[in-house]
């Protein structure tokens, strides 16, 4: 009898496992994000953005007569969890994957989608080599790191008039290393000089040793470029300012987090500049509509550009589904690759470059006394 009961239980449980697959009247998107851990302050808003887009589309009647379902999976800022999450999404019969604000995690998950011929759209990972590394199922919503590094490098030299620059790099991530590489390249092309390079690891809390070295840099540093993810963004600004250093701090979109102002506090969050995705203070209709919808849904303004990018990722996939007329892997992939002039919140997306990286504008944002302001929008030349 006991054996019978167990068997019964086993059958019920396995039915419970397949049950979700029966409800195939929805279009499922697997959204892989690090909702906990070091990446959470950029990934959680991105998932909110993605879910919001799905909701707006569903409110208008869905796609191909079906509702969109965004299956959010938390991968805990852990690459192993990212791979497991990808497998989970794929076994959940998703028609496309989306996710991540960082290259390292995309590289853990996207190749599994590529193997199955299912498109993966990254909302915020910016390494320009991603489409080359993963394959033809890899699509990027954001600009590439080369673009954002070039933008901030030109701003450093031309607008901040800083020629002697110190570069700090988080040595644990592909994204931060790439960002520094492109930044240094452009600074040197513009006649600037890298007076000192220093390194740290994601998760480091104490930067006092690097700061002491920054202080004694010779010739004197006129700006410091910090290639970091959000977890270290606020910490480094706080500790540098507290050590009495007032030089401009510049960075890329890893600094597009509220931690840059909340951790150091308004008084110390000063003279910080970063390049990021275009949407803040923009008046294009799609931006205004997005900000309003986000505030209505979550009762707060979008935390950062990643919310908009998540929103755009689902929008991009929905646009491709509409054009393809079906959700099957190959047709969807081709429709995505043929995207032209898609009006995303973070700028128009066209896949015209051979690298597969969209050509988009880059915003330079300044932080002065805890206040964000868009200084300029930079466009790539080619």
């Amino acid at each position, binding site marked *: 009898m006991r054996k019978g009961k167990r068997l019964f239980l086993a059958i019920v449980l396995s039915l419970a496992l397949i049950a979700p697959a029966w409800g195939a009247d929805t279009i499922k998107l697997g959204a892989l994000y690090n909702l906990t851990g070091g990446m959470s302050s950029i990934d959680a808003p991105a998932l909110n953005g993605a879910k919001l887009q799905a909701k707006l589309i569903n409110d208008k009647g869905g796609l191909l007569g079906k509702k969109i379902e965004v299956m959010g999976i938390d991968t805990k800022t852990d690459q192993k969890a990212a791979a497991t999450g990808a497998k989970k999404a794929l076994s959940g019969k998703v028609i496309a994957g989306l996710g991540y604000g960082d290259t390292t995690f995309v590289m853990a998950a996207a190749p599994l989608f590529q193997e199955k011929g299912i498109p993966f759209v990254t909302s915020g990972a910016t390494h320009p080599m991603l489409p080359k590394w993963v394959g033809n199922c890899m699509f990027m919503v954001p600009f590439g790191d080369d673009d954002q590094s070039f933008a901030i490098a030109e701003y450093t030299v031309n607008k901040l008039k800083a020629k002697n620059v110190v570069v700090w790099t988080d040595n644990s991530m592909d994204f931060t290393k790439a960002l520094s590489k492109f930044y240094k390249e452009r600074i040197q092309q513009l006649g600037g000089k890298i007076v000192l390079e220093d390194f740290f690891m994601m998760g480091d809390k104490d930067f*006092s040793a690097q700061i002491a070295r920054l202080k004694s840099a010779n010739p004197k540093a006129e700006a410091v470029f910090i290639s970091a993810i959000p977890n270290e963004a606020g910490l480094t600004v706080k500790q540098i300012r507290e050590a009495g250093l007032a030089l401009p701090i510049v960075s890329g979109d890893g600094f597009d987090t509220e931690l840059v102002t909340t951790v150091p506090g308004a008084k110390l969050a000063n003279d910080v500049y970063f390049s990021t995705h275009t949407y803040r203070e923009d008046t294009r209709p799609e931006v205004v509509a997005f900000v309003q919808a986000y505030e209505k849904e979550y009762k707060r303004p979008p935390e950062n550009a990643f919310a908009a990018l998540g929103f755009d990722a689902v929008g991009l996939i929905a646009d491709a589904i509409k054009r393809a007329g079906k959700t099957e892997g190959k047709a969807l992939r081709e429709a995505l690759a043929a995207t032209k002039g898609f009006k995303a919140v973070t700028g128009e997306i066209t896949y015209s470059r051979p690298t597969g990286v969209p050509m988009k504008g880059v915003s330079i944002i300044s932080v002065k006394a805890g206040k964000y302001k868009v200084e300029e929008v930079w466009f790539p030349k080619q």
Partner: protein
Amino acid sequence: MSGGYIAQQIVNGLVLGSMYALVAIGFSMIYGIIRLINFAHGDIVMIGAFVTLGLFQTLGIPFPVVALAVLTAGGIIGIMIERGTFRPIRGAPQVTGFIASLGISIMLQNLGVMFLTAQPRNFSFPDYLQRVIKIGAVTFRTIDAVIMISAFCLMALLMFLVHRTKLGMAMRATAENIDMARLMGININRTILSAFAMGSALAGIAGLMWGGKFGQIDPLLGFVPGLKSFVAAVIGGVGSIPGAILGGYILGLSEVLFVGLLPPVYSAFRDAFVFVTLILILLILPNGIFGKRIEDRP
């Protein structure tokens, strides 16, 4: 490399070392008395940081009162952990306690994530603790001075307690030989409980300092101080309180000086150097600096 630069790095290392030392003391005390490697110790640092955040930032209670409250909260958590987990399994093989402490650690972290979310929170102290002080080429903040001085005072107080009071004598006796101590009429339960309370109170206050120093806290922050103070305790000789203090300072200083004095390319690998130091010290002094061979308990 100027003298001022090196002096600055030494100050940086001492501040970091003070925090490691405070956490390492509790680690060492608990090990000394019941031979338990308590991996949940680092998470008490996290609890201390969040208690500070709640009382000070949200409720606006004055700073000295908060410091006392955090000490008490740390102590109470320590007592709860001992009563709830370690007392029921006392006498079990060492590895049972070790695994149980790992379990508590994971539980505390996950409870933190559940109730407080994993989003890092900012943590700011009043201006008078953030003021920058400049002595020659060395700059530091009031909070750094407060960390160093209060760590020193707390450690002095603890040494007094352990060496000059009856309770301290009982603790030392229990550490030496638990069965003999019991035969001598020492209340073992009370002694172990007070070791947990004191060690955890110090870890709690280290949490306050950790938050004040780095300005950003999250429920998983206990892992690093937990691991580092374990290393500090091993360097100094597990079970020895002066050893834990010395180990904490050696660790803090070597971490900062590795980054500060080696070429910058190695900066990212500070933790690797820390563990190399640990291995080197253990190769020369297998029981740590102040460690003695102590009785193994089953």
